[in-house]
């Protein structure tokens, strides 16, 4: 009897300790990145790191503005393309589609989500980059194809499955009686969706958008392969960009040979971590609350 009690107590403490440890990992990552980027913060003020576009590691000056602008531009372009399409597709799946269509489409969406980002990158290099080059040429712009637009398109396709499946789930969770009341009052299905369902689901849809924004924000491999990686603030859709994750991925090899360079890359990682974590926390808090309210 007591042996069983002891097993129970010991295992319970072990489970709890591991759970707290796992949950605390995010904090450990934050502290480690901060410790490693401290030399850079001592060397240069945060303001000049974020607002200067003077990037000369050899001369000891690190201005992250082109990279930040690149990241925001790429993510913005991707979201502008992905959000309307995904919201409409999710509404169709949740409100209009028959069960048969829904269960046929779901595995495909899951598959899209499961495709590794390098494969997206390769697809971008093989298909999107030449296409962008072609389009740029028809506008009379000379462009290698490795550009803001190419990275945006690849990222947009990458966030499709996240947006569609989260939004479809959120819409699906909207209580049925609200819909029935609207339909009974003579609203068309679209009017019901627009006035009732979307209003109910708005916080959840916002959360889904924020979540996929932060996923796109930190996406590395697909972007590094198609963005062109030229450190300048992009002036057009056909200009090459150099987002933060690409900076980290491209320079890990040299980072030990130049003073402060490793701190600069870790600062880039820290910046990514902070932005993504803030966004994710907000989005998940909203989603968890909705889940509890509608259960």
């Amino acid at each position, binding site marked *: 009897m007591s042996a069983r009690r002891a097993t129970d107590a010991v295992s319970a403490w072990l489970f709890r300790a591991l759970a707290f440890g796992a*949950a605390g990992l*995010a904090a450990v990552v934050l502290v480690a990145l901060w410790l490693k980027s401290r030399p850079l913060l001592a060397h240069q003020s945060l303001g000049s790191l974020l607002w200067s576009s003077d990037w000369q590691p050899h001369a000891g000056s690190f201005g992250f503005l082109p990279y930040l602008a690149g990241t925001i531009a790429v993510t913005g372009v991707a979201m502008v393309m992905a959000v309307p399409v995904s919201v409409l597709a999710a509404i169709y799946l949740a409100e209009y589609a028959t069960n048969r269509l829904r269960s046929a489409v779901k595995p495909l969406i899951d598959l899209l989500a499961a495709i590794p980002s390098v494969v997206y990158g390769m697809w971008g290099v093989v298909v999107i980059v030449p296409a962008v080059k072609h389009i740029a040429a028809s506008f009379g712009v000379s462009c290698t194809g490795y550009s803001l637009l190419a990275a945006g398109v690849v990222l947009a396709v990458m966030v499709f499955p996240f947006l569609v499946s989260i939004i479809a789930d959120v819409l699906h969770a909207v209580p049925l009686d609200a819909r029935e009341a609207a339909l009974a009052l003579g609203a068309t299905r679209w009017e019901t969706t627009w006035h009732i369902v979307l209003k109910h689901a708005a916080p959840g849809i916002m959360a889904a958008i924020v979540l996929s924004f932060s996923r796109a924000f930190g996406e*590395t491999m697909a972007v590094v392969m198609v963005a062109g990686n030229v450190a300048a603030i992009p002036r057009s859709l056909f200009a090459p960009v150099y987002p933060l994750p690409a900076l980290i991925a491209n320079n890990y090899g040299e980072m030990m040979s130049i003073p402060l360079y490793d701190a600069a890359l870790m600062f880039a990682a820290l910046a990514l971590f902070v932005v993504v974590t803030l966004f994710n926390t907000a989005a998940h808090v909203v989603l968890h609350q909705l889940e509890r309210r509608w259960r």
Partner: protein
Amino acid sequence: MSIRRRHVVERLMQALMLCSLGLVLASVAAIIGVIVVRGAPALSWRMLVQPPQSGYYAGRGSGSGIANALVGSVYVAFGGTLLASLVSLPVACALQKQYLPGGVRRAITLMLDVLWGVPSVVTGAFCFIVMAHYGLRASLAGGICTIALVIMPVMVRAMAEAMSAAPAAMHEAACALGATRFGVTVRIVLRQTVPGLVTAVLLAFGRGIGDAASLLFTSGYSDFIPRSLSEPAASLPLAIFFQLNSPFPEVQRGAYAAALVLLLIVVVVTAGARACAARLGIHVVR
């Protein structure tokens, strides 16, 4: 608004929605189509069983293969999944209501969700810091730990979800018969949720084998099949990344072949996860 106009709007929106859904599905088809069309001619048995002969930049003739990347990826993904399962299973157990109060569980779940969202390049950078701190170089072991860290949050979430679906009545029956909390967890809940657990592990494996950004720093790259945990290991995603930019068509073919192999693995694993959930579920008492 006239009734006619309202119907026009209804039709218009439906058409727009169908177009959007079509676009999403077309992108699935486009990606898979391109990978298959490019990869299939490049793929051969020799490609799979031969490591690159003379460095991946110089690989010429028929001498280049991706065996190093294939084996490296399998090692890293298997090791990472195993390590992550060892941690995830107890954590998922702790997320049952018998172990922690609701507020704490919600907080831990939130932290794990946030950890899940951390970009893998950041996780890689973090693991690199830790390895550098202990004087470790890029190695198979480093890659395994990194991948474990990347996939752990997904695995815990999926496992906890599966365990929370176990019927409460069975739990109460076991308790009434005098089982301890641990006994209930191991003999009832875990046994009941085997399909969910297998699905969680397979999905995490699929995620782990495709992750590249975190491996850049931690597992390195080599032309040889690793023989010990301390040697650097190549991986399929990194093989695609490095070889695609090569000026030699023969080396590029390696990237196409690697992408097809990677895609096949991911598709098989994802389909396996679904099949497990459906098939193993038959024996579960509901």
